[in-house]
């Protein structure tokens, strides 16, 4: 217990780093996921921009990246992170790698959310002369907003998880804190303190997400 009190500055610094990593990965991964999801949805057979080769490439890409265990993906994507971010270690490299992995996971979720929009509504929009870009922004995204918010809430939890795993390969945050001061120093109380904070964080975000989704669905 005493050790935890001594570690307070490190604990809060780690919490801040977790928020930093999760915040930016949610932004970049979320955007990437939206683009991939829209790409999958729009290019699928029968959709408004149906394009078999584009769909096939996206589909195979997503199916290739998604099953890679994240800890292995972290290692495998390091050269790519070095090329893009300029460094293979540290929080910014970690953000790049997590955002990349999250884009593919989120892409599938976005695609599934968009598929809940009734094709009839899209047909109605086409029948009054709306083009694809207008349909995306005035029909697809607004009609799928509720499920999309829940999808992003879900991926937030996955991002917290991934950021903790990234602590193993040089990322900061609560995962690294729990490993370094808890696990490696045989101090379970320190580990559990990190776990507790993560649970609180996830609960808060889940509440927020549910509330926003309810508002979007007016239920």
């Amino acid at each position, binding site marked *: 217990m005493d050790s935890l009190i001594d570690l307070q500055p490190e604990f809060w610094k780690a919490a801040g780093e977790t928020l930093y990593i999760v915040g930016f990965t949610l932004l970049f991964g979320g955007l990437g996921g939206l683009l991939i999801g829209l790409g999958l949805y729009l290019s699928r057979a029968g959709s408004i921009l149906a394009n078999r080769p584009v769909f096939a490439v996206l589909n195979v890409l997503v199916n290739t990246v998604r099953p890679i265990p994240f800890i292995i993906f972290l290692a495998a994507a390091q050269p790519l992170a070095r090329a893009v971010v300029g460094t293979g270690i540290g929080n910014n490299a970690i953000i790049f790698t997590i955002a990349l992995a999250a884009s593919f996971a989120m892409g599938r979720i976005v695609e599934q959310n968009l598929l809940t929009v*009734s094709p*009839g*509504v899209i*047909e*109605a*929009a*086409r*029948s*009054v*002369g*709306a*083009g694809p870009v*207008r349909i995306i922004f*005035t*029909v697809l995204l*607004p*009609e799928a*907003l509720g499920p999309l918010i829940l999808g992003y809430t879900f991926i937030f939890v996955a991002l917290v998880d991934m950021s903790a795993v990234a602590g193993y390969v040089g990322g900061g945050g609560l995962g690294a804190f729990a490993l370094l001061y808890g696990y490696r120093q045989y101090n379970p109380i320190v580990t559990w303190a990190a776990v507790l904070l993560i649970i609180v964080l996830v609960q808060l975000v889940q509440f927020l997400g549910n509330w926003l989704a309810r508002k*979007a669905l*007016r239920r």
Partner: protein
Amino acid sequence: MSAPTPLVELKNVSKVYPATVKGAPDVTAIDDVSLRIDAGDVYGIIGYSGAGKSTLVRLVNVLERSTAGQILIDGRDVAGLPERELRPVRLGIGMIFQQFNLLNSRSVARNVEYPLEVAGRDKAARTKRVAEMLDFVGLGDKAGAYPDQLSGGQKQRVGIARALATSPALLLADEATSALDPETTHEVLELLKRVNQEFGVTIIVITHEMDVIQTLATKVAVMDRGRIIERGDVFDVFSNPQQDASARFVSTVVKGVPSAAELAVLRARHTGRIVTLAFRTDAVDQTRVFGELSRDGVGFQVVYGGINEIQGRPFGHLTLALTGDDATIDSALDRVRALTTVTEVR
């Protein structure tokens, strides 16, 4: 003087879907259809489900691409137009759907506003038009409501307001009342009638419901397996269908024609001869028909029947069980045949 340009004219239009499985034959949804619809018409397209009605109507606003033929809207072939050039064409063609297809994320007023946004009208003009349209369909007090708070009939009225917001000359109605109960169907049909009569909007109405044709349509085409097998004045087609397939369809929706199962029951109950008389025009004098039967003492009993009315003109079928000797019945029936159509039921 040449006839005025029809509002919609299909010339030898086909739609073939390539086979989904390799080696399987292609699917012909629309097979060499030609159709002319004049401004002001309410044109019904009827037939069993799967006959190609919905596909046909989607060729008119090019939601689906035809694979052959011409689709002339106001004299202009739209079949091959690229998507971008179709948008102004579609603004002139409203469409309503069986499932209403309203945007759930938008209020009633914002749904009606949608095509006006697409058309690029300014905010003031949009607001004015939305209020007009909601008043027209009787939903002025529901402007701020959301579609999930409305009944089916109200949703379809919003659909009609949306479809007509840009003042199109043509309205496509794809089974617009098939998801509604009879009373609501009646309300929506009356509204569509006003759309035709007050605004002069030409309507193409796809349906398998007799009510819709009876209340609304002036002309009708019968579709079967992608082809139009019969067309014409509604009264003529319904009172006297020329094709077997249209007769079969008509008999399922008009009153008074016994089905095969009902005939079997009648047959079991009546051992004598059974005939069906068709009163296909209001010119047939029923009094004379029955007078001819009873003159020679042929006994008859009405065992099945019904009278329909289309555009104020009655037509119907009566099935009679006859009693008497064969020779008397034959001579009586010969005289009746001079007055109307007689079908002997074996």
